[in-house]
């Protein structure tokens, strides 16, 4: 706009003509549909979600020479790092049966969640161009981000199990390992729910993005990745808090089923299932409430 704005034409005003129109068959453009319709339209966009997730997994590491090998290499290096620091230097694994496998399962599973949460929290803020170009239920972007992480993590899970088998003391493969499927399934639902909440928060206040990585690091130390929860026997309240931590339960249930030949106990399953379903329900409603705001420029 020109800086030398001419004298504001306050004087003349257009004549308002009362106009009666029939708006019955018209819908407000960009209006947020009712929750149920929203879920149905999300289902209608399942092909979009699936294609987006799949295509981006394929091209995600194209810049790197080793390409998709990084999907496996990065948790592997991460595990090695924690093994050196926690296992060798600090000896935090004292008294834990098969500590290497204990650590591997913890680090691999936690990283799945932390990646999914941080990627999906940026799903809205980072895809403004797609949002401006097309009309579709915005939750599909968060869903696609989570699905993409799930696809990308299938080789990671396989590596994890191979490591558990190969590294001494070698574990025996059992049918109980199939229990990993519901564990990862519940973990996926939890990540999705939290991702929906964070995606809206980040789209409102970009600063939240800065905090997420710190929160995730704190969470990592609170999830008993490289020490046993028994360390906190002397501080019962802290141990209690940890037992209600959904990601601790993910890691705990995976270890019990894969390493220690136990079902893991109903309590842990119930806590995890409640967390997952509640977070997903709250996240869905919270995200849907903001549906109209995602196109807005900050």
């Amino acid at each position, binding site marked *: 706009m020109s800086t030398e704005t001419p004298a504001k034409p306050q*004087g003349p005003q257009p004549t308002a003509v009362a106009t009666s129109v029939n*708006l019955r068959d018209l819908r407000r453009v960009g*209006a947020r549909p009712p929750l149920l319709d929203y879920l149905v339209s999300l289902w209608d966009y399942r092909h979009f979600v699936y294609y987006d997730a799949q295509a981006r997994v394929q091209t995600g590491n194209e810049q790197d020479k080793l390409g998709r090998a990084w999907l496996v290499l990065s948790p592997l290096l991460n595990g090695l790092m924690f093994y050196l620091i926690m296992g060798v230097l600090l000896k935090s694994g004292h008294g834990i049966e098969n500590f290497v496998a204990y650590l591997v399962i913890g680090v691999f599973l936690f990283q799945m969640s932390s990646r999914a949460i941080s990627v999906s929290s940026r799903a809205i803020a980072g895809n403004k161009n797609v949002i401006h170009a097309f*009309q579709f239920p915005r939750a599909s972007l968060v869903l696609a981000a989570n699905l993409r992480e799930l696809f990308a993590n299938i080789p990671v899970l396989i590596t994890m199990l191979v490591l558990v088998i190969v590294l001494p003391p070698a574990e025996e493969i059992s049918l109980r390992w199939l229990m990993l499927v519901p564990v990862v399934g519940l973990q996926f639902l939890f990540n999705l729910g939290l991702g929906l909440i964070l995606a809206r928060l980040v789209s409102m206040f970009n600063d939240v993005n800065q905090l997420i990585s710190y929160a995730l690091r704190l969470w990592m130390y609170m999830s008993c990745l490289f020490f046993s929860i028994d360390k906190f026997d002397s501080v019962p309240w802290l141990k209690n808090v940890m037992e209600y931590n959904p990601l601790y339960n993910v890691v705990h249930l995976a270890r019990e089923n894969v390493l220690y030949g136990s079902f893991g106990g109903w309590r842990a399953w119930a806590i995890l299932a409640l967390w997952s379903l509640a977070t997903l329900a709250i996240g869905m409603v919270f995200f849907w409430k903001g549906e109209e705001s995602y196109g807005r420029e900050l």
Partner: protein
Amino acid sequence: MAESSDLNFIEGTPAVVIDKVSMTYRTTSRSRDGSSAPAVRWKGFRSAVSRTKAVEVPALKELSLVVEHGESVGVIGRNGSGKSTLLKLVGGQVPPTSGAVYATSTPVMLGVNAALIPGLSGDQNIVLGCLAMGMTHQQIDAKYDAIVELSGLEEAIRMPMKSYSAGMSSRLRFAIAASIDPEILIIDEALNTGDAQFKDRTRKKMLELLGQAGTVFLVSHSMPTIKELCNRAIWIDQGELIADGEPDHIIKWYRMFTQKLAEGDRFGAMKLRRRMINDLEVADVADRNSLRRSRA
């Protein structure tokens, strides 16, 4: 606004109703001060925290418009007058600051701004873009070849989009956006980019879409285009609706206005602007079924 006693009763259902829509962008502006000179040790801190201040830019003042089926509306105005903002609001890309836009079906914006995902290849972007517009895989299969042909990308379609030139990616975006036949079509002027061959091709496709669509909004700086394609024109200046009516009539006044500005006759131009506003009648929309309609 001055009230008028006569009531305008619109039979049937209109295609698009723009009801007192306004748009204010919030953005940041680097503050120019420095004269206020606070204590020196504060200066570094202050400049680190608040170098910029939030400002509000009114892009569009309250605007109402009723567009019926079969109308093609040309939108004219100077650069930065709010034309593109109006189209974005009608297309639902950006929610208005106040007011609402109602339409019989979701308007489709045809522009070269439909940005896609740079990391994916051209053909993947075609599928993704079409899926995002709500097409099924079968529909995409049927249209895929036509899209590739319209984009004129040939072999490059398998390369990632970030390796494309600006012209190539805008061609692809246009081709994807043009692949659905919308009932309400919004076209931004940026289509006039590209080489002669592409211009010709897009023009043909545009005419084809115009023929199919019931209602069209077209932003263009080319007055012949507006005259040729539109049966109604609106003129927006500094976010305000100035005139609304027959394209020939509106364009005549608009040309006079820009000519006066070019000659440096600001006074004359503003006088003309005031006169146009004075003669303008805007719709004060009221819904006949308002008792039953909820705004949620």
